[in-house]
């Protein structure tokens, strides 16, 4: 049976690791792999004060599609992913991914795939506010 997407959502409010962990645990699950992305105080040698995340209206649908895609092709029991939008300070949580599986290998593999796919396919952007007050959109070439 394919894995179940328990949570796949874009959130305005603070994210909870516990929420995603609880969502994917269960009696048939032996291992949960979790990734928590947080705001770092530096990037490329410059001090960072904040990150502002913006999402395209399609982001909500895309994150569900991406999560379902991973759950369908990996032998896992449950997946959960939440991505935060809005203005975040240093050490705030921007994304949480959790995958529950029978064994750790599948949980880790699917967890890595899911965060990679979210970053690649979900239309979200982040503006980096540097300590000196300047800012720039990340990855805007």
């Amino acid at each position, binding site marked *: 049976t394919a894995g179940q997407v328990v949570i796949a959502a874009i959130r305005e409010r603070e994210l909870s690791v516990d929420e995603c962990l609880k969502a994917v645990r269960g009696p048939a699950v032996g291992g949960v792999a979790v990734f928590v992305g947080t705001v770092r105080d530096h990037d490329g040698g410059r001090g960072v004060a904040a990150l502002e995340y913006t999402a*395209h209206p*399609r982001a909500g649908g895309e994150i569900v599609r991406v999560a379902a895609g991973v759950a369908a092709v990996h032998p896992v029991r449950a997946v959960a992913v939440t991505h935060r939008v809005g203005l975040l300070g240093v050490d705030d949580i921007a*994304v949480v991914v959790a995958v529950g599986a029978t064994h750790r290998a599948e949980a880790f593999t699917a967890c890595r795939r899911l965060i990679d796919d979210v*970053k690649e396919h979900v239309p979200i952007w982040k*503006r980096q506010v540097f300590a000196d007050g300047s800012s720039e959109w990340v990855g805007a070439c």
Partner: protein
Amino acid sequence: MTIRYWAAAREAAGVAEERQHADTLADLLATVSERHPGRLAAVLACCAFLVGDVPVGPREHADVLLVDGCVVEVLPPFAGG
């Protein structure tokens, strides 16, 4: 039709969206690049586009015909996580 800019494209264009007639996506991008000199052309070069909520993907911009009233969206490379 309406062209809507996101993130770095919005910053480079200086507006969230604007109305501009054009027959193809290529024409549209050329026109707005002239109207907003500066970084917009460079940013557009690495953006993805939606036309009527449908991703343009690899199609040639000159081959993407625009109908009146449709919405073109300009999406810089995603940077979530």
